[in-house]
């Protein structure tokens, strides 16, 4: 396993929490009970995973679709790799942008390397936002595509450890 977490205890912890924390008075004690750790050990390991950037966020995970944000557009551009970071950081300054990254192109059919995600309540609103973005970030010269999602088949947190494979106590 090539996880960037070294030890089996951490893998067990990730397995135990990837579906969410229990909703009870002492959630970390309950997690610890499942995997043979004390409450303090669970808290310490979570703090460590967070400090090392393995965990980027801890808290309530919201499902935007159910909140009425149903127009979700992925916008992609083909920009020179060397300019992607500069443009990407300008894009993230807009508060309607939820994700922005550079990805590897899938050539020959897919030359796009800069991606961002916009969630809005209405398609018109999202199209207006994209227009503003293109002007302000000087993205007009670059080939781009707007891919609205018209259907969601699955949305949940990532499972890095197949449930039930490693860590029975």
């Amino acid at each position: 396993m090539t996880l960037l977490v070294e030890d089996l205890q951490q893998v067990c912890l990730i397995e135990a929490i990837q579906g969410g924390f229990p909703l009870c008075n002492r959630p970390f004690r309950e997690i610890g009970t499942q995997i043979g750790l004390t409450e303090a050990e669970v808290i310490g390991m979570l703090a460590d995973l967070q400090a090392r950037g393995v965990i980027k966020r801890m808290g309530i995970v919201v499902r935007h679709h159910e909140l009425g944000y149903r127009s979700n557009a992925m916008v992609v551009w083909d920009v020179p790799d060397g300019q992607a970071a500069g443009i990407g950081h300008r894009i993230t300054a807009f508060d309607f942008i939820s994700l922005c990254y550079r990805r590897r192109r899938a050539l020959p059919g897919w030359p796009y390397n800069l991606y961002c995600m916009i969630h809005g309540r209405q398609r018109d609103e999202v199209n207006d936002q994209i227009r503003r973005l293109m002007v302000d970030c000087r993205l007009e010269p670059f080939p781009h595509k707007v891919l609205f999602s018209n259907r969601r088949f699955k949305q949940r947190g990532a499972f890095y450890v197949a449930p039930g494979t490693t860590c029975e106590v």
Partner: protein
Amino acid sequence: MDQTIHEPRVPRSLAPRAPEAESRLAPLEQRLLDLYQRDFPLCPEPYAEMAHRLGVSEATVLQLLRDLMARGIVGRVGVVFRPGRCGASTLAAMAVPSERLEEVANLVSGFPEINHNYAREDALNLWFVVTAASQEHLKETLGRIATASNLEVHSMPMVETYHVDLGFRLGGH
């Protein structure tokens, strides 16, 4: 379990109203989500600490969260891992003939390695995120999807991320 979505083609007044009503947040719910999409308290009684800051009881916080989960607005309370720091992941896409979209989407969703799976308006019309414990497992999963669907799977792995994930910005435009 997931509902399909629909750009509203029906006039607003004729559209079913329940989903809109369900998605409306009470002021306390909005405060809870504004404060705690990140910085979940790492202490023995985190929900009690959240309750203290919100000026309500721990039982109220737990009930609000259960209720938001039952309405589908909250997926879970927990962690979001940074892609690339834990295991391996990629964004993948396929060009699925429209008459097979439902079938192939269900096939893809059936893999435990898939966490997001959306239809999008493009020749590449099915997009999904694949997450696995290792690069080998990731590659094998993409191969299994290609074989099972008899379609090509394109992979666009992350090179660099530019946003800071602060959770979903509520109500802000």
